[in-house]
């Protein structure tokens, strides 16, 4: 795995690393990918994907306001330290 590829992945994952750390992660990733590649040997023709944690089917929740959640908004706001009125403040997106 070369640096261009690692840079691309780090960009997608929004992580900044030093070049030394990049070298290390490239090496680790190569080893891990080598290991997981053995799955290619398994014949999965016609096998459905298992997407959830169980073999059960998905169900939908009814679209109702949950009373339990109503009182929590103040507290949730507290976990974002830069606030202005009822808004969470972030740095500018455009220069």
């Amino acid at each position: 795995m070369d640096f261009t590829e690692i840079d691309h992945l780090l960009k997608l994952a929004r992580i900044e690393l030093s070049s030394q750390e990049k070298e290390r992660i490239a090496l680790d990733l190569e080893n891990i990918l080598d290991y997981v590649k053995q799955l290619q040997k398994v014949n999965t023709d016609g096998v459905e994907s298992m997407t959830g944690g169980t073999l059960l089917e998905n169900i939908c929740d009814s679209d109702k306001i949950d009373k339990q959640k109503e009182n929590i908004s103040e507290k949730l706001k507290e976990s974002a330290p830069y606030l202005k009125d009822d808004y969470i403040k972030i740095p500018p997106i455009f220069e």
Partner: protein
Amino acid sequence: MIKEIHQKLVNREITATELISGYFQTIDEKDSQVKAFLSLTKEEALQQAKKIDEKIKKGEEINILEGIPYAVKDNMLVNGVKATAGSKILENYIASFDATVIKKLKEQGAILLGKTNMDEFAMGSSTENSAFFTTKNPCDLERVPGGSSGGSAAAVASKMSVFTLGSDTGGSIRQPAGFCGVVGFKPSYGAVSRYGLIAMASSLDIIGPLTQSVEDAEIVFKTICGKDPMDSTSYNLEEIHNTQYRIQNTVFGLPKEYFQEGLDGKIKKTIAEVIKKIKSKGATIKEVSLPSTSYALPCYYIIMPAEASSNLARFDGIRYSPISNYPNLHDLYFKTRGKGFGAEVRRRIVLGTYVLSSGYYEAYYKKAQQVRKLIAQEFDKVFQEVDFLITPTSPTFPFKIGEKVDDPLSMYLSDIFTVSANIAGVPAINLPCGQADNLPISMQIIGPYLSDFSLLNVTKTIENIIS
């Protein structure tokens, strides 16, 4: 143990205040060495104990867990208490609400002692990936307690807590329980609500108890299980009290793939002796095969990082207390996440990003999901032949601190016998069954999907047979 303490409280042989103070004293004496706790909630605990004492004094009835001290892994939210998940990125994060498991334990009057150490975001098998410090194995302080729920396992093993909660995504309750010589139960996927658990891999994560006996695990599990409107994957498990249960009617399967090369000889021998004892009580033992076993770990190391990379996207520096203020959004994201996540977390996020990215998705992620289906189907099939499976929990004894930390792949192999249960969603329990060179040896008993209460029942019988 829980029942004994409960009786002592009811009979007024001990007050809740004495009990709780006693546990904090043990923590004072031992935790400077073991390092199982990240934070303590002493003041609240003693206040709660006082209230329970008043209740007992008035002659009021108390619940089985009322006044019983416990600790939780630091990836579960307790309102008003720090929840770091072992990560620097959450170093100052204070939880805004109670996880459902905490809410249920609070309702029963159990008393929280504190939060336990873990590998960062539950990624690891030794607690060496904690951003704060490494927990030691109470059986041998030079060795790891296992992980990622290493703090929870060490706290129970060193009797600093009656029970603890851990989370298990690929073995994170069972492997440390095995390494420290305590009981650790991973319920069926969905049997316990994940609301308020900091997510690693949502289709694999589950909360469960670590205890000194199977009976204790059952008491705690009964309290925390059940359908929760806040977690749509949770459900009610029908409580099966199989009082007619007899070991003579039970068929145990030994999957041959779990007893092959790589398994330590002493562990193999001890488990063989236990199986002999079980057989002598009249149980049927049958060798079975789960042919895709060797694919479970590579399958896990695609699905888990994929889900983790998505789940950890929420740590963006905007919520959950950022590390510092940056002039633009780009820097805020890249620097917060670059500095805030440790090496193993970064590795898994980047790996997950890779297997989900365009061009690789089909070859990795989709393939892994298909293999996952095959593994789950194999479990379904084998449970038509046998009632439960017996395997080792770990191929090795607890390793030395520092031994594997620089070699991710060899660390991953610690979970080789535990991941399959998460992949298939079935319940599995770690039961200590012997020791060698002062280190614990443990076995794993796996049951069919949703058989949690029967599994606990059969494990109690085996626990009795061993002792």
